[in-house]
């Protein structure tokens, strides 16, 4: 009986401690410095790489047309937007929704890994090809 009580108690610990820690799908902080298309295990696998086709500022959604089709996503206040200036040999900058402009090449990664229509984006990398291309803060 004591053994059962111990096990039940520990199972409760398991549920509380273990269940409270989400899937470790990547430490995002160094992710910002990885150029578009080179994120290990993600690029060419679960991310969408393509051109922004439409931008809806009111809904904060964008549609990206890539080789795997057209994908829409919602840009939340938690979505990281990074301006990839590696082709210019310049450091990555933090971006804003204003940097998501039609015709720009982006790489999009959905929250929770799975691609889904209008699903929230965890991060979006925007390829910047001109030094003044970002409307963002450093």
């Amino acid at each position, binding site marked *: 009986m004591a053994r059962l009580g*111990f*096990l*039940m*108690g*520990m*199972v*409760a*610990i*398991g549920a*509380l*401690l*273990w269940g*409270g*820690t*989400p*899937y*470790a*799908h*990547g*430490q*995002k*902080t*160094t*992710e*910002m*410095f*990885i*150029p578009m298309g*080179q*994120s*290990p*295990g*993600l*690029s060419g*696998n*679960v991310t969408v790489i393509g051109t922004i086709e439409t931008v809806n500022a009111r809904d904060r959604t964008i549609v990206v047309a890539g080789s795997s089709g057209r994908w829409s996503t919602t840009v939340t*206040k*938690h979505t*990281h937007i990074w301006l990839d*200036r*590696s082709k210019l*040999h*310049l*450091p*990555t900058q*933090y971006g804003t929704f204003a940097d998501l402009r039609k015709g720009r090449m982006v790489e999009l990664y959905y929250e929770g890994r799975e691609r889904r229509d209008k699903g929230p984006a*965890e991060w979006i990398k925007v390829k910047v090809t001109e030094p003044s291309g970002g409307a963002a803060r450093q």
Partner: protein
Amino acid sequence: MAKVWTRHTVKGAAQSGLAAVCVSVFALASCQTLPPPDPQAKLIAKGRDLFLNETFEGNGRTCGSCHPPENNFTIDSSFIATLPDDNPLFVAEFNPDLATLERPELLRKFGLILENLDGFDDLENKFTMRGVPHTLGLSVSVNSALGPRTGWSGDGAPGDGSLRSFATGAVIQHFTKTLNRVAGVDFRLPTDEELDALEAFQLSLGRQADLTLPLPLRGTIAKRGQEIFLDRNTGKCSACHVNAGANGDPNIFGAGAGNLNFDTGVENLPDQPARLVETFPIDGGFGTDPDGGSTNVPNPDGSFGNKTFNTPPVVEAADSGPFFHNNAVQTIEGAVAFYNGDAFNNSPAGQLLRGATGSGINLDGTQVDEVAAFLRVINALENIRESIAQLGASLDVHRSKADEHLKLAIAETKDSILVLKAAGLHPDAVAHLKKAKRLTRKAARSWFFRSKKTREAISEQKKARALLVE
């Protein structure tokens, strides 16, 4: 013209003949035919070369700068003190572009490395200081049902968060030439093939399987320590360190739970040595917000993350201190005693343990020593296993590569001697280990008796092991 044979020419011919025989013996010894390495072995060898030598066109550091094989793939202040001032580990001291890459005093005195785990948007105020975890036994400690756990908080890798991707994040964080961190300028990123090789090498290090406890230990003190470690009413250690590894007990956390994160209150330890010297931010552990997500919402104490850190294996603990993510505790006895203190017992993990079992952890001084003795003995057993593996490997490779195996066998043997001797454990086994170390050194120096001395060293290692465990 007829050759006139004098005494001198005969003697010269004899000497030449002897020399020729010697050369032939040397040639035969060094031209032994070895089977070609299998593809996995080749991948591991490539990974090893990258791990120890590849700078990725950065500031000169390699993976081995912080994970040296001769120091259990980790660094501590004693090891750091042996390095020359121009070692790339100290790049922040001599490269003005990288002056804030590290906190030099914390690196030299406490082995703490600066990590921007919570973002690069405020480099002055937003960073963590962490010890270097060893990379041993990763094949049995990195996986969890919730995905791979890398680094101290389990979220150390970019990309898909895997061990394979970890190297990419490490290059960006630690190898950069400037704080701009521009790929192709400040470093180059590892290629897919290099990531494969680095992962294969890291997974090949140390144990490839967990122990099965209880072990039939011979020492009374270590045996009692093992009982306490496994006991659900006293030590309660195996709930999170099943079989003294890094994984949660499947009876509690479910089959395949694997490596887990907990908030054990280490950050709340009073008088942390490094914080007595310098002020630096509180480490929030996993993620960048209180829920473990990535929203950059701080905790009330200013830290970022859900305060949890992942569970390291304890088989390799005794010779790879200091302990915990912040190197706050120097000895294995101190690490065991941590679980007696307020920092743990008042932590979320400690409180839940108390609620589930009716009490916190409250070991007496003798019991702390006994659990530590158990951890020292299983560490020594692992050192012996690895020493025998390295000695055996030295017999299977060309002479030019054997020295590296013998060097590692000596390092492992030194560790096994140290972890036992420091607590007065098994002096009889220590004597055999000292003999094994001497024989291994002789093997490394000898041309003709290398194999013989190596086999004798293996025999001494086995004798030592037989005194520790049935």
